[in-house]
């Protein structure tokens, strides 16, 4: 606090580079420590936590990715549902899921407590991968392959909602994931 009080509308004259009042100083110190905690949590979670968006990321030609997805679908297809291939990849497999206006390339059938490498990309515009009701949300950008290791922790039926605006059909772009025991 300066000796004389003035409002923020006034031009301060003389030297205003003055020591800070102890109360304010204490608050700033505590705030600074809190900011360091906020900062430390993110790297820490990479070592201790199970949810990180790091992944394996690469540029990819949309046509190449589409071809890989098709090969993947053919290799592990176990049925069809509503005209879509139902695909059951083996544990640890690379899983390819292609988003396009306005559908997902397959219905995935996964096993609980099993790790897969899920590759996401788009054939046209930006899309969003939102796993419902778990609430895992990943951005999908055309020209980029986003590979994420995922491990389902419960059995059941899940939805994949597109949560990045992708045109007038955006709201019908819903897919499905089945997780079995």
């Amino acid at each position, binding site marked *: *606090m*300066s*000796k*004389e*009080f003035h*409002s*923020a*509308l006034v*031009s*301060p*004259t003389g030297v*205003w*580079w003055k020591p*800070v009042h*102890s*109360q*304010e100083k204490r*608050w*700033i110190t505590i*705030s600074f420590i*809190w*900011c360091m905690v*906020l*900062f430390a949590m*993110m790297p820490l979670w990479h070592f201790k936590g*199970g*949810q990180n*968006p*790091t*992944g394996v*990321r690469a540029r990819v030609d949309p046509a190449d990715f589409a071809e890989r997805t098709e090969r993947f679908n053919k290799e592990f297809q176990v049925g069809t549902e*509503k005209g*879509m291939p139902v695909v059951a990849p083996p544990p640890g497999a690379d899983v390819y899921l292609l988003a396009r206006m306005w559908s997902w390339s397959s219905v995935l059938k996964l096993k609980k407590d099993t790790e897969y490498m899920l590759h996401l990309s788009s054939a046209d*515009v930006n899309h969003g991968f*939102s*796993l419902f*009701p*778990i*609430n*895992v*949300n*990943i*951005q999908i*950008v055309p020209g*980029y392959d*986003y590979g*994420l*290791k*995922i*491990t389902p922790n419960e059995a059941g039926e899940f*939805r994949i*909602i597109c*949560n990045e*605006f992708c045109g*007038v059909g*955006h*709201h*019908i*772009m*819903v897919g499905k994931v089945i997780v079995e025991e």
Partner: protein
Amino acid sequence: MSETVQSLAKRFRTCTVTGIKIHRSAEQLIKVNAVVAIVCFLIGVLAAIGLLLTRWQAVHYLSVVMYYRFLTAHGLNMLIFFIIFFEMAVLYFAGPVMLGSRLPAPRAGWLAFILMVVGAIMTNVMVFTGQADVLFTSYPPLKAAHWYYLGIILFAVGALIVCVLFFLSLHVAKKEKTYEGSVPLVTFGGLTAAIIAVITLLHGAIIYIPTWLWSLDIMPMDPQLYRLIWWGLGHSSQQINVAAMVAVWYLLAGLTVGGVVLNEKMSRTAFVLYILFISMASAHHLLVDPGMGSAWKIWNTSYAMYLAVLASMIHGFTVPAGIELGQRLRGFTNGTFEWLRKAPWGDPGFSGLVLSVIIFGFMGGITGVTLGTEQINIMAHNTLRIPGHFHVTVVGGTALAFMAVTYYLIPLIFQKRVALWGLVKYQPYLFAAGISLMAMAMTFQGVFGVPRRHWDINAADSPFPVEFHPVVNLLQAIMAIAGILAAIAVLLYIISAVLSVFFGKPLTAEAINEKASGIPQGVLQLPNQSHNSSMVARLHKTGTPGTVVLVFIFLACFVVYYFVNWKLLTFLWKIG
């Protein structure tokens, strides 16, 4: 020192009575920019009502095409046009008017204004004729008509000119010695906003010019690169809003209760921190994007170890503490909170200020830092938690502060009394309640996985319809009704501002003497403070105990909210 406050306020008054106008062109530019800002605000608010009634799926009012068109219009007119036009007015105020200097090159100011208006009209025409259904982020490869991008470019060039004029007017004021010492803190805050605006607009040029060329099929555009640089614009512009809002907080604190600056050094350092870390702001929009690695994400989303957050926490202390000290100087020294109880709560300038600080800090700040954490963002990206967050920063914070300061600009600049005064006294309360409740309802829906920007979350026409938890229906109704209350508050504000400016009773010396209605108490009666040495010595000893209590409550909320979110994260599938 309080005489200086008084003389400053008197200068505005002398203007009224004697007609001395040293900054007439600046005043006129303030007027036109503010008026256009309010027109954009009106378009945005009308669109918002349509959006609310659509997202409330029991009503589901707009068709799918119209919903996205209104969403584009709302984002653009609110976040870009309304806010930036208003900030141009703030810059003319914080520069020439505050420093009592002339505005150099007023013609350039008019040119800038025309460019901005033409740009805004062009863009809006494209949106409303259905040639730009791309939402205001316009992520390629979604493509709008090329006029859309050109409109934004013109608008940005205009805004850039205003920033340059602001720098020039500071230079002129210094050279012509219209003030002594350093510029006032409010002007310093305006300067911060203007510097950030230049950085922001450069990002804008780097991205919009190539995108415009891309829309003309002249060059390619990488979607990820676009997202990176577009958010260099999109988020940095939020930092303009924060800096301008904090400047308005300091201004209103001084005008309403004679709030003081605790320590010039600290407040100014905090503003500088905003400038230093601004271009990193893009990152927290890209935390779950494929283009960038974790080290980049962590470093940038934290704005270099949260030093910009530190800056906000400093202002979050100094603004309420300045109000507290101002009030204590007026004699409200009993207990911890007499200064707060005896504050002018019926003055919309004051209530708007306090509500803006509370909403921005408690709700906006805490949610923002939490959602912008690399891993927590996995649970939040593109869900309704995101609009739930920014409607309590840029709307409950910035827009509310701007509305509050309007109640002072009307008498001080437009020299009119505020119309509908009896209703307007409640306007900040109605708006604050509506927007906070709407944002909370959005946030909770987001927790249930409800996406933002979505016409039909139940996906009735898709192969796999989605069944949300039944409570989501209730939350949708709360969101819509609370949002409509906030919209009504905005309409009240707009009607009052238009009536005051175009049909208002003039602010005359007699009106002031008679304490006529429609004059905020800070204009009516200058804060009557005693600055004798015993008072000053006493305040040095007590400091601001009330503020200390408040900020520690804030910190406790922050810590709890932050760690609850980490806990929630552990329930997700393993992902990495």
